[in-house]
């Protein structure tokens, strides 16, 4: 598989002196479902945001397959919807910012809403939706431009387990329908194994990748997979890798 992006020697120091990411090397293959797994505050979200271009790395380089950063869909930890705009208008936003009129965008918006199963809710306002539905709108908004790369930053962390499982399944369906490359951030071992084709395990801060684990199970995964022995084995292996990362001698923080 061809490489979509390669990160080399990425390092990020925040203005307050915190070294968030240090020595991050990573190749993202086209079409893979890659999960960044690590403890809270390990710099995995920071890595994702640098990938999105929301913050520049302090040093190191991100090389893209087509020389330039492709279109990116980004889903935040919160739904991040505009409360004054209907579901339709929220999903319209990425296209609207590109000066595509409401009527020209209508078809793409309808398709994006159908993809997340909210076709009937176009006229509803965000406050009338449940947490899971808001997150679906957020995903529809990220997909409306049909980006080759979809980034999700712990999108389901605030949802209840039943809703999270449902959205996990829907995300996998979307992924196989659209063929998008996905980078997903989570601190849940079980979620990462269920979703990913590959898991990058992060060390505690300053974050870098200490293990890259393939989950080579066939992709239409379902409840059966979640209950299988194979799934449990993967979870055990990933969990062990995460524990090893947590207990590894940590690099000294740079002096301020």
């Amino acid at each position, binding site marked *: 598989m061809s490489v979509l992006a390669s990160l080399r020697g990425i390092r990020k120091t925040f203005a307050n002196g915190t070294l968030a990411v240090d020595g991050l090397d990573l190749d993202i293959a086209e079409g893979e479902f890659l999960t960044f797994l690590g403890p809270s505050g390990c710099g995995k979200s920071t890595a994702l945001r640098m990938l999105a271009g929301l913050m520049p790395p302090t040093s190191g380089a991100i090389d893209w397959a087509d020389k330039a950063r492709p279109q990116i869909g*980004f889903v935040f930890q919160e739904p*991040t919807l*505009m409360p004054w705009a209907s579901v339709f208008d929220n999903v319209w936003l990425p296209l609207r910012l590109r000066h595509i009129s409401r009527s020209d965008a209508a078809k793409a918006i309808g398709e994006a809403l159908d993809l997340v199963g909210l076709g009937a809710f176009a006229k509803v306002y965000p406050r009338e939706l449940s947490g899971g539905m808001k997150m679906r709108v957020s995903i529809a908004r990220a997909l409306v431009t049909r980006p080759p790369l979809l980034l999700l930053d712990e999108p389901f962390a605030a949802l209840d387990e039943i809703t999270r499982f449902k959205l996990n399944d829907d995300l996998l369906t979307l992924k196989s329908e659209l063929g998008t490359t996905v980078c997903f951030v989570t601190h849940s071992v079980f979620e990462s194994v269920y979703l990913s084709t590959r898991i990058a395990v992060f060390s505690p801060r300053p974050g870098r990748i200490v293990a890259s684990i393939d989950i080579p199970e066939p992709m239409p995964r379902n409840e059966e997979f979640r209950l299988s022995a194979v799934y449990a084995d993967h979870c055990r292996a990933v969990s062990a890798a995460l524990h090893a990362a947590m207990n590894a001698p940590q690099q000294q923080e740079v002096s301020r």
Partner: protein
Amino acid sequence: MSEPANGRSALPDFVLPVAIFIAALAGWEAVVRIYDIPPYLLPSPSLIGETIVKDWPLLSGSLWVTLKITFSALFLAIAGGLFLAILFSQWKWVERSFFPFAVILQVTPVIAIAPLLLVYLDAQTAVLVCAFIVAFFPILSNTVLGLASADHNLVELYELYGASRWQQLRLLRLPGALPYFLGGLKIGGGLALIGAIVAEIAAGSAGQGTGLAFRIAEAGYRLNIPRMFAALVLISVTGIAIFLFFSILSHFLLGRWHDSQRSREA
């Protein structure tokens, strides 16, 4: 007729406050009549009502003057406050440089500025400027706060999609600031009226004042207490009308999306 489970009859919400208000007026009327209080000490509500009707030609002219000043000042305060707030939100150095002036104008009591303004300006303009000064600040500071309060993630999302500054202002910051702006309007609307009244009192007979405040002062000199009360009632009613107008406007503009307009299910 079925009654709700809690045993209280299902009266509309407004019945109780209205009934109590009427009871208070009736109590006032009764006290005046029972103790035979002369009208130059405390006029009864009925006499105040009669005075409003009897003096209506005089009072309505004054009411019109006061309304004109209040709404002109409010309009200028809205235009100025909104414009400056947008300027402040776009360029931090503008905010740093000019916000102190706005604060100075705000913290200096308008009653203390009024005599000075009356020296420089004709009475009517001075009154207008005073009303503007007090109404302006809450609108400015609320809108500045609102424009700065945009959801940080949404700001990043706009950046991610390469939104221009103008798009960010129009599609994100201004709609987000609307509840704050309307809050400022509710305060500013009331203050514009207060500013107009206070400045006119300060102007006193110096101006050819004809607003309601002047009527109060004038009636005071003549010990025409019922007319003082009548003018006071008209001022109160004006203030209430302004407040109601902006409350209804808020409900109309925010009703569908803002939490402040949400009624919770019991």
